[in-house]
């Protein structure tokens, strides 16, 4: 599967082409009332979203699970090139926007307290290719294991792991 550029081994890369102009897609990522309409997993709502869109500016979002559990997330914009690029940190937070240990949300002690997310928006003749690079895994992490080991059909291994679930 083609992804944008060379994924560094410790990054998770997710990409998709949207049939909308780049300016609009960028706004959907950066304007709170638009972000609230789509951000997060299926079934989640966003009762709170504040975005201070400038380098060094912060954001604070509250994602509410279908079961009614609130996940507060905050971060700092490291780089903004409208409508091409967004780089921001991503951490769990409390409702006041203070960073909290991921364990607070039951994420387990192995979750790093801060992840770095890089989003690129490429113009594809009126459509837009969005690529999310999600770094901040422990050093030496290897996404290839997932891509080649699980998705790539090493059934014996994935079957074994499924049995260990």
């Amino acid at each position, binding site marked *: 599967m083609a992804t944008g550029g060379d994924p560094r081994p410790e990054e998770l890369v997710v990409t998709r082409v949207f049939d*909308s102009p780049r300016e609009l897609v960028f706004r959907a990522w950066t304007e709170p009332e*638009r972000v609230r309409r*789509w951000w997060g997993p*299926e079934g989640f709502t966003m009762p709170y979203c504040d975005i201070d869109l400038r380098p060094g500016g912060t954001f604070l979002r509250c994602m509410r699970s279908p079961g009614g559990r609130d996940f507060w997330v905050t971060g700092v914009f490291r780089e903004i090139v409208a409508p091409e690029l967004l780089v921001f940190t991503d951490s769990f937070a409390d409702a006041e926007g203070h960073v909290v240990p991921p364990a607070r949300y039951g994420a387990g002690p*192995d979750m790093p307290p801060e992840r770095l997310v890089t989003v690129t928006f490429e113009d594809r003749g009126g459509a837009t290719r969005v690529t999310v690079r999600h770094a901040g895994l*422990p050093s030496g*992490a290897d996404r290839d294991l997932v891509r080649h080991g699980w998705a790539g059909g090493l059934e014996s291994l994935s079957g074994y*792991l499924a049995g*260990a679930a």
Partner: protein
Amino acid sequence: MSSNTLDSTFAALADPTRREILVRLASGEASVKELAEPFQMSLPGVSKHLKVLERAGLISRGRVAQSRPCRLEARPLKEAADWVERYRRFWEEGFDRLEDYLQEIRREGEGGNGR
């Protein structure tokens, strides 16, 4: 599992030879000699990889005489994969919703005052 363990899990998985060793072990126990065969690697070379995997808790070694067969320990592997998988799903599902949202806007734009 401590973050140290997860770190060493990821470090151990970063090497293609070690990943292949794990895949081989998924189909059953194997001795060092059996593991060395497909790699054209010396026994000490393979042993070095096995030590890394063992330290990361990804394999265990039997106590049986000389051969000390290697066995895959799935749990650390699964935790590392789950971590990545959670985030992949997070973005994929977000993208699905963004697609729907953009489509909605397009329809509104066509039906409404345009611009």
